[in-house]
């Protein structure tokens, strides 16, 4: 079985973000990067499917700058077989532009299953996987929390409000992965060694035209300091009055 996983290089979120001088992008100074969490679970899902359906091959594809090869290597160290970097110095904020470039690469691969993370933790569009499915004319299942592939078809669980939806679909198909499907494995040191020797091809990304551009970014307004109106039961009338007249929540 041939499996492709599309992964994204995203900033590690444990920092205070600043807006760049252009006012419409994030200041990248001092940022650290990693594989998008949801994409790591997609890689893990691909490796588990591959282990169950051997022989097979897992290809990891990322669209990003040269440095995104670090993220591809991480997936290779976990056990993926080969990587493709679709090089773009700046990743467009428009998911469709990215989806077109990924679709162009995926079309030729004859993959049985194409996995994505449900969303990227930076732009949070939840769009790319579904758009690629549309462009390739493939069935798409989004936000999967359980996945089985057997006998040329797939079964997936999706968490819906108050319950679970069970879906069946023919292959080839696109599946986007939700939290809870698995926990990604740590690469072993042997995996890290082996990743260095695995093929990683770099080619220019054939980005589509951006229909949407980011015009402005703003940080949320600073929260005003809290106020203490009094103590004990005596403070209740004033508190209720403020909640009604000022906060307007009652």
């Amino acid at each position: 079985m041939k499996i492709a996983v599309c992964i994204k290089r995203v900033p590690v979120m444990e920092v205070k973000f600043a807006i760049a001088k252009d006012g419409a992008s994030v200041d990248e100074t001092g940022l650290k990067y990693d594989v998008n969490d949801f994409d790591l679970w997609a890689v893990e899902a691909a490796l588990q499917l591959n282990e169950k359906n051997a022989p097979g091959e897992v290809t990891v594809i990322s669209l990003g700058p040269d440095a995104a090869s670090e993220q591809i290597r991480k997936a290779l160290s976990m056990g993926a077989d080969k990587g493709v970097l679709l090089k773009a110095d700046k990743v467009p904020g428009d998911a469709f532009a990215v989806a077109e470039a990924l679709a162009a690469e995926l079309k030729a691969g004859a993959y049985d299953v194409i996995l994505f993370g449900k969303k990227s933790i930076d732009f949070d569009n939840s769009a790319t996987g579904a758009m690629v499915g549309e462009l390739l004319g493939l069935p798409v299942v989004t936000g999967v929390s359980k996945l089985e592939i057997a006998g040329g078809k797939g079964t997936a669980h999706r968490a819906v409000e108050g319950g679970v939806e069970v879906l069946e679909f023919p292959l080839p198909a696109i599946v986007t992965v939700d939290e809870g499907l698995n926990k990604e494995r740590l690469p072993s040191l042997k995996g890290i060694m082996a990743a260095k020797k695995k093929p990683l091809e770099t080619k220019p990304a054939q980005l589509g035209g951006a229909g949407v551009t980011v015009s402005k970014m703003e940080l949320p307004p600073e929260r005003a300091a809290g106020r203490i109106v009094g103590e004990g039961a005596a403070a209740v009338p004033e508190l209720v009055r403020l909640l009604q007249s000022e906060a307007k929540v009652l």
Partner: protein
Amino acid sequence: MDESQYFSEQHHAVREMVRAFAQDEVLPVAAKHDEEATFPWENIKRMGELGLLGVPWPEEVGGAGLDLTSYILAIHEMAKVDASHAITISAHTTLGTSPIFYFGTAAQKAAYLPLLASGKVLGGFGLTEPDAGSDAGGTRTTAVRKNGHYVLNGAKRFITHGSVGEVFVATAVTDPSKGTKGISSFILTKETCDLAKAREVGVGHDDSITPLAGFRAGKKEDKLGWRASDTSELIMEDVEVPAENLLGEEGMGFINFMRTLDAGRIGIAALSLGLAEGAFQAALKYSTERKQFGQAIVNFQGISFPLADMATEIEAGKHLLYAATRLAQEGRPFGKEAAMAKLFCSELSMRATIKSIQIHGGYGYTKDYPVERMMRDAKICEIGEGTSEVQRLVIARHLLRELAD
């Protein structure tokens, strides 16, 4: 620090993996193993799976096939979270496995390296004796040749993995008339003391290892720190050791083990630096969160100055450590630099952990915060694998030798 002078992208990948393992799987159990002085068998199994028990050995013998820098990084990173796990890696790899890798015959390597490098069984190193500590040349354990084997009698003290381990390299006097040149080294095997647990987790014991009659672990030490690391006495009573277990040439045991200790010192330097950094990071975080007199305590110079000192010394320690590592990796002489790195980083680990507790105030003295454990774990770094005094002796000898050249 510009890390590119020491680390490649692959080194960063190694560090990231060890960091994730330490945070997710070691940190949650570190305090409990310390409190109860129990050996973390489950994590030993995981470390074997991840390749952390054979980092620098070639893949052909079951190792991960990485360079020395990767190995030192792994110890350094692990010690930021728990020194006991870090010394397990270091003692098993440098002390337990490396003498067989460097001085073993083809048959010895084939018999033991795959088991050790994969972490299937744990190894240890027996040099120190009740009456031979810093003066390792005062070895009293004897090995007498008899009918094609050696008969060993004596005891080894403070042996990491003495109880839990199965494969040991140890020194014994084969020719009392020749001083240190009359000391030889041997491979000694026994069964792990935790056999039931080892069978349960699937590592720690292998049936192919023949226990030698009369060779056993003695008292397990109850220690101030490194409490999740196993330290025991080893006792040899008329142990008949097959002649093929002689490690290296007869009379070369002491000399070979001194070379092993040079490498071990880089490992202790890495462990010490990891402790210092772990304590520093905890203090830095705490000082920005803890408020007194209406503001975060880091705003007071009484708090920020020791943090600045710690950061500066850690930076210096990193350069000493990775410069010594690079020399060793390139096969150049590194004994003086290893002793300097060990001396500086181990004394730094003590200073930094004490400062960290001071910054934490009363909370730092409690087991609710990890820094008291770090301080207890740091003290032994100034003692084990050569005391600070011995490091100064080693460095001074190098200075005099250079003067004579």
